């Protein structure tokens, strides 16, 4: 196992420029991970990122990164629809892989990735590692201890809105700040489920474990979107509502909609026979968990800047997308110390199963039985 993991970053778009590159170019990680290469197909973007963040190699071609990048592992930070193909290539080239959410768009793809990694003895971690979050661990314990009686139903989800059209990092004039978000509105991999609801689904399944069945309704409510004066035809569903079945009359309402947020952030509300957990409150009282006071003090404009996660210390508390950094460091620790992470590809696959099956349920009008599970 390497002393210092040599990492390649695949894609120099919004998540890399705002989060991954600033985090991994901090001095405090250099004893464990070094950014050796970055690639992006947009001419000049990888080079600009390499220059800004002090990265040895820049490529426009991903294959070249794999061949010449001097990397042990890659983090895949490209549009979701590209994750599968890039993940397979990386594994074939003998690289360990961290996937940003969502790992792949189908269970079949996820299974190929998992099987190939196992066959080659390579490690995978996948975002979002919600199971690492202390408040979710605490909620899991509360639910298991019967704090709200028998859980009867839950609600969670996300609203797409016009988040990506308006992201600050996309409004500039240079290659690092003019990233086009149109892929978020197209198949494969577009839409609010793979992009946002995936967080809520990871949180939910981190607490309740794997689901059994899903039914859904889904469609494209906004057929055309605009970014910086250009119109884009949207074919990825932007309005999906599903119900999951956990068995024993426990159901979960999950939404990824064009707009309209029912629940708090990406948090899950749990309703039981004796009480409820809504957001981070149990029966209207705040739930205590390690790091709560600091996390809440750092809540600015509805956003929690500081996320109490194991690796989020020092300068990382001030940098965006700390949870992505955490999941990358989970892979780094795994490689350096042989310490397995709960941010597993198997958990990601189960969430992909939920999303893919929800779309299939909506299309066929037939409730789908989930085929995957994960260690929980």
């Amino acid at each position, binding site marked *: 196992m390497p002393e210092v993991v040599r990492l390649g970053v695949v894609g120099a778009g919004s998540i890399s420029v705002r989060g991954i590159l600033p985090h991994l170019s901090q001095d405090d990680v250099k004893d464990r991970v070094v950014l050796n290469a970055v690639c992006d197909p947009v001419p000049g973007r990888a080079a600009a990122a390499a220059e800004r963040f002090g990265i040895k190699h820049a490529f426009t071609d991903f294959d070249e990164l794999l061949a010449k990048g001097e990397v042990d592992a890659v983090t895949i930070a490209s549009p979701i629809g590209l994750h599968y193909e890039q993940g397979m290539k990386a594994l074939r080239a003998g690289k360990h892989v961290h996937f940003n959410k969502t790992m792949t768009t189908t269970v079949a793809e996820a299974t190929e990735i998992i099987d190939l990694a196992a066959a080659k003895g390579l490690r995978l971690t996948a975002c979002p590692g919600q199971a690492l979050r202390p408040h979710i661990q605490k909620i899991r314990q509360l639910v298991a201890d019967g704090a709200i009686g028998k859980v009867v*139903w839950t609600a969670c989800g996300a609203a797409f809105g016009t988040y990506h059209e308006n992201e600050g990092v996309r409004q500039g004039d240079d290659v690092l700040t003019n990233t086009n978000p149109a892929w978020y509105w197209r198949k494969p991999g577009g839409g609010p489920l793979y992009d946002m609801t995936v967080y809520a689904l990871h949180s939910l399944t981190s607490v309740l474990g794997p689901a059994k069945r899903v039914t859904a309704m889904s469609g*494209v409510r906004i057929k055309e979107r605009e970014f910086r004066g250009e119109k884009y035809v949207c074919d990825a569903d932007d309005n999906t509502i599903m*119900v999951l079945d956990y068995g024993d009359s426990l159901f979960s309402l999950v939404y990824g*909609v064009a707009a309209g947020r029912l629940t708090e952030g990406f948090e899950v509300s749990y309703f039981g026979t004796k009480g409820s957990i809504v957001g981070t409150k149990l029966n209207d009282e705040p739930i205590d968990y390690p790091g709560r006071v600091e996390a809440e003090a750092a809540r600015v404009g509805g956003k929690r800047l500081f996320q109490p996660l194991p690796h989020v210390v020092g300068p990382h508390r001030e940098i965006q997308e700390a949870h992505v950094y955490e999941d990358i460091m989970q892979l780094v620790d795994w490689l350096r110390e042989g310490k397995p992470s709960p941010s597993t590809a198997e958990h990601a696959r189960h969430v992909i199963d939920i999303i893919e099956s929800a779309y299939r349920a909506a299309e066929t009008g*037939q409730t789908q039985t989930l085929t995957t599970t994960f260690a929980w």
Partner: protein
Amino acid sequence: MPRKVKVALSGLGSVSQRGVLPHLAQPDALERVELVACCDVVAERAEQTAKKFGWKEWYTDYDEMIAKADIEAVLLAGPIPVHYPQAMTALRANKHVYVQKSMTVTLAEANDVVNEANARGLKLVASPGQMLNPIFQNIKKNIADGVIGKVYWAFSSTVGGGHEGESLRAGAGALAAIDPTWYYKKGGGPVYDMTVYVLHALTGILGPVKRVTAMSGIGLKERRWKDVVIPVEMDDNTLILLDFGDDVFAVATGQNCKGAPAIGFGRMIFFGSAGTIDTGRPMMGLEITSDTALPGMFGFTGGSYNVNAQRQLKYVVGPHTTIPEPHVYNDIMHTVECIVENTRPIPTGEHARHVVELIEKAYISAETGQHQDLTTTF
């Protein structure tokens, strides 16, 4: 002075004791209705009710009442599964019918009732008359006028703790120890009992539903009423997804197995591209919040509208504002008005039939795992 309508009331349980009977005993109601006959299978209850609330005759046999009593209209307030046979008997005897929610259990029954009433030119009014409420009419108009932009989806929820703890069930005597068992048997359950309110309002505001899917089950396997253990045979935990066409969806939940009411009973939220309308708790006081101004809505208090929804109902005035179930009374007086003035009801049998079909198909969808297309409209 309008003429009085001679009415009979069937089913003298909780909703009648708490709501229908005290409302109809008020002087303004007595100017519009004549309390001819009441009926309940429990003889003691029927007799005591007639005496207490001033009804001329009492019966234990519904068919006998329909055959003998000198009435124009029947008010049906029995358990939901008896609505259908009682409505059919009344219509065949040429009586106008007011029926408590839900109108029937199945679409086939609803078709029979609607067809019989229409064929005979009789008035059929089915609760809940949500669209009699100016507040819901206002929301409907504002949404149609695009005040919240393009509608994306709606959420609605009815969550209760069950019926066994209600005041008129936990007490003693024929009028206050009313057995709630039927709520936990077929034809009971929170969807026919409670979700029906939001389903009437959602469809009243957004129009008929095209397709439905659902998941449903029993959360609490048994209930306790006094010393009786009631095994629960009817689903008490149901989540329904509705498709209004054009990729507009809604959620309706019905649970009576839940302790803490984390979401307001009867709450509806409409999410659009340009705003949100949240009704708060429309069955109680209504606190409407909207991120856009709602033309025609009053009671604005800086960010939200504080409106007591039930006080907006035409007949809910004077003493009726403090008696429980004022919306039921309003629906009954609307029935009386339609009979006297020969006008078409707003809460029609057709609307109730659409909601009955929706509920029946939601259960079928939950059981078969197959989305169900709706065949009715209104």
